């Protein structure tokens, strides 16, 4: 059952994440902005999986915490300093407080009623951010940095231009190494590595939670909450803690999004963003450690790469074919790429849900099983 022990898994994962600018180069995704999104949405999905994957409580409201994290960060950039540490801390704390309130109310119900309550809260938060709380959120325009922001700690350092986010002077956007390896122009920037380190830390925390007594209780909540109550466990504080932890991860992700680009808009709180993280976790494999990150990478890859494939690109792919075949193929494929990338993602999602209920991780396990022959051995053992 166990393929490798936790330490090996963590080391392989960390190596993979740190080498990502190299590994993703052949896929066309190895530019800092997208890699950073992979890592950030990976953190978001890891946190969401602690709630959804372990306890089975499906929240559609986690976009609200992502948004709260972003707003909190930008306020920190405006008021205090462009250093990202205070911004990230406030993002996590504020998202934690928010999720405590929303979770306390929503968790009075379970199943579909819980989902609907979180959805309602997300929509409320969106509307608050969009209109009612305009002094705090700057409404439709979104919260942005301005030249006359006080920035009490380092306000005077920059003249005439907006300062950029940094970690003790290391600018997040700065590319510190720009080698050319195997014909690929690679960019290593500080921003990605900040996100990467936090992603690895999040992965480690999730791993510890999965293996802990606390994690076992959360899984028991998903399986049979009734039995758990009659076993002397008060289930509500367990689910609330899981909810707050996942909310804090979402806040961290929101804060990191603001470190990439220091502006926060209400659209980040829209429930579709919360729906996207559900897709990520289900696609990758809910309740698994690595699945949510795979799902996040997959969806962000589709969103950014597939959506850029237009007919011109397709014609160049099929250029060696005869012209009539080229045109036919382009006509068939083009609805699924470019603006139609959602179509491909939807089809893929359906295939995964129907044939691989365990997500991409399940698929990888099955393929691994075919290669090593473990499936055949298992089938044989069952037959006997």
């Amino acid at each position: 059952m166990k393929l490798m022990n936790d330490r090996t898994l963590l080391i392989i994962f960390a190596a993979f994440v740190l080498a990502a600018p190299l590994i993703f180069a052949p896929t066309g995704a190895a530019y800092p902005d997208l890699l950073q999104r992979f890592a950030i949405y990976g953190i978001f999905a890891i946190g969401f999986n602690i709630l959804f994957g372990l306890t089975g409580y499906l929240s559609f409201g986690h976009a609200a915490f992502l948004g709260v994290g972003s707003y909190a960060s930008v306020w920190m950039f405006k008021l205090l300093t462009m250093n990202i540490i205070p911004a990230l801390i406030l993002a996590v704390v504020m998202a934690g407080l928010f999720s405590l309130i929303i979770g306390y109310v929503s968790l009075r119900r379970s199943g579909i009623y819980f989902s609907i309550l979180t959805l309602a809260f997300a929509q409320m938060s969106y509307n608050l951010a969009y209109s009612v709380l305009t002094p705090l959120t700057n409404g439709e325009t979104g919260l942005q940095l301005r030249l006359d922001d006080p920035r009490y700690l380092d306000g005077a350092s920059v003249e005439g231009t907006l300062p950029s986010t940094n970690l003790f002077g290391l600018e997040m956007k700065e590319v510190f190494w720009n080698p050319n390896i195997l014909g690929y122009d690679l960019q290593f920037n500080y921003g990605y590595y900040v996100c990467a380190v936090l992603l690895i830390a999040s992965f480690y925390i999730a791993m510890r939670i999965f293996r802990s007594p606390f994690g076992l209780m959360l899984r028991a909540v998903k399986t049979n909450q009734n039995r758990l109550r009659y076993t002397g466990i008060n289930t509500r504080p367990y689910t609330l803690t899981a909810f707050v932890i996942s909310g804090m991860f979402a806040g961290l992700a929101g804060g990191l999004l603001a470190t990439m680009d220091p502006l926060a808009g209400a659209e980040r709180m829209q429930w579709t963003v919360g729906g996207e993280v559900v897709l990520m976790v289900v696609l990758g494999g809910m309740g698994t450690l690595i699945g949510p990150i795979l799902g996040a990478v997959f969806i962000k890859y589709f969103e950014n790469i597939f959506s850029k494939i237009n007919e011109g690109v397709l014609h160049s792919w099929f250029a060696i074919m005869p012209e009539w075949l080229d045109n036919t193929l382009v006509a068939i494929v083009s609805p699924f790429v470019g603006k139609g990338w959602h179509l491909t993602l939807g089809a893929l999602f359906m295939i995964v849900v129907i044939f691989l209920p365990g997500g991409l991780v399940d698929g990888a396990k099955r393929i691994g099983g075919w290669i090593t022959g473990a499936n055949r051995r298992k089938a044989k053992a069952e037959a006997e």
Partner: protein
Amino acid sequence: MGILEVQNVNKHFGGLHALNNVNLDVEQGSVHALIGPNGAGKSTFLNCLIGKLKPDTGSVKFNGEPVLGKAPHEINQLGVSRVFQTPEIFGELSVFENVMIPCLAHRDGAFKINAFSMVMKDKEIRQKAEDILEDMGMKDKMNLHSGSLSRGDKRRLEMAMCLVQEPKLLLLDEPTAGMARADTNNTIDLLKHIGETRGITKVIIEHDMHVVFSLATTISVLAQGAIIAEGLPEDIKGHPKVREAYLGEAEV
């Protein structure tokens, strides 16, 4: 004074008087069977004991402490465990994990955030879980997915989960319902074994007279929401009211 004292419990469901002034005194160390025809109110009564239902009037005391109005997990933490009519286990977890959860609940209480230790490296919990599975003859199955167990094994697992908490009172709701005779006999042996090795007070709700007369030290008969007779098994067998209400229809 008994370990469980129930006084004048009444429960209405709309116009139905489901429990009518029920009194019950369960002696420490006894096996108290509660029998009665279908719809007599046995399950309602049990649900009142464990906090699932709240009676309209009356009092329930466990070890002298009133338990009415307490949540199910609080009552369990006082030392009352329950075996359900259809086995309630954690079907998606392994047999071993199923038993570890009550161990943890017993040691750490109703809520504890213990998120940074490894549950599989907790020697004390592992040992306790292994011991109880050994005792229940399920050690060879500890790594199986509990949802794939046979019904008899699920029942056995559920009992292991209750026993590992070292309860003072064990409530069993028709532990042999729907079982074949051989399985029923196994369950009787298991319960006798538990009685001999642990001496836990038990309240059993049961339809099968064979089971009742094999195990019970005291029997109460419930009919139409009221206790109509109570006494030793021999007395109950011959009690005219009981024959009329219940045993007349069943084989003895």
